[in-house]
């Protein structure tokens, strides 16, 4: 029984790691802010989810699992909102820029 659990845990943690790496890679490689926001929020949230799943198998007490799930929920909520705000701010900057070199 534990071997299967152990195997599953490693797979989950590796998956989490993979998503974190792709998220940061996207952050570095993508051309403008909008695409970077996609990379960071989406990939890291999934990575964190997998990480939480893997770690909860490790400890198997429901308290720490509930706590980690709460943290994950909170990170997703704050990540999504700040991504929205940043994108909106960037769009406003671009609009001002295009307006200024439009009438120049």
């Amino acid at each position: 029984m534990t071997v299967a659990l152990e195997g599953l845990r490693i797979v989950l943690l590796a998956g989490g790691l993979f998503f974190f790496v792709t998220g940061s890679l996207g952050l570095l490689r993508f051309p403008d802010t909008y695409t970077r926001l996609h990379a960071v929020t989406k990939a890291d949230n999934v990575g964190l989810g997998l990480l939480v799943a893997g770690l909860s198998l490790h400890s198997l007490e429901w308290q720490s699992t509930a706590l980690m799930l709460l943290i994950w929920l909170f990170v997703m909520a704050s990540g999504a909102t700040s991504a929205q705000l940043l994108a909106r701010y960037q769009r406003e900057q671009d609009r001002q820029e295009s307006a200024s070199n439009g009438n120049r």
Partner: protein
Amino acid sequence: MEIAEAVLDTALIGLLLTMAWATLHTQRMSAAIALFAGFGMVLALIWARLRAPDLALAEAAIGAGLTSALLLRAASITREETIRIPTSRLWLRWLFVTAVFAWLAVHVLALSTLDGGHSLPELVTGQTPNSGVRHPVTAVLLNFRAWDTLLELLVLLLALLGFRQIARHNRHPYDADHHPAPWPLLKAWSRSLAPLLVVTGGYLLWRGSDDPGGAFQAGAVLAAALVLLRLSGQLPVFRWSRWTVRLAALTGPALFLSVAIGSAVMGEGWLNYPDNASTLLIVLIESAATVSIAVTLAFLVAGEEEDIAE
């Protein structure tokens, strides 16, 4: 487990030092501030690693959170300047720095092993039961070395007074049209986040007597709530001229000082809490300190557009 710890430590220390060096020496200012926020988080991780939860809480709330907010605000005012890295005789300077580091390191290494019997920590854990609280750090902060904490509340108050002096010569009072109306999304998010922060702050304050937490961490979290509400336009401009704001900012030091004087006059000595009332007194002082820390830090972070008609 030994290798895992070694990998973790080298990663943390390597990250810490490279981010510290990069923060000071990158070209663009915005990159420097982003690195500084990251540095604060890595430092909070290191405090947790060194089994210091109180510090991890305080560092995350104060170091990474409020300091980065302050830096962003200051950077938005300064013209976006890419600094010219002084490269004159760079290697000579770094040679000198490494030499000084080696000299310091040789001496400090002698400290890493605890040879002499250091009685103070055992003294603290021994005396904590009759100090009114169970968590030793809070016992030291609010009972054994309460005089330090009182003076330190005055430090916070004085930073605010210095802040006020500058505001009095400030020819940029807050005008609503200059600031864009906050977006509905930001308003909704801050309205849902603020109660969560207040509850967490209250919880940290209450837990302070038994487990890591306490006045400073709770005050910083509450200050974050105040700043969030202020920046999203739900709170009016912080006005020092209104006496309620002043009372809130002064309750901490004033109550602490009056308890000190009261204990000197009625009790056995300066800051010598009567045994049966020490828990009540500590909780009272801690909550007053939390209120004044929250108001002072919120003022320092988001209190800039002050009306000069005071």
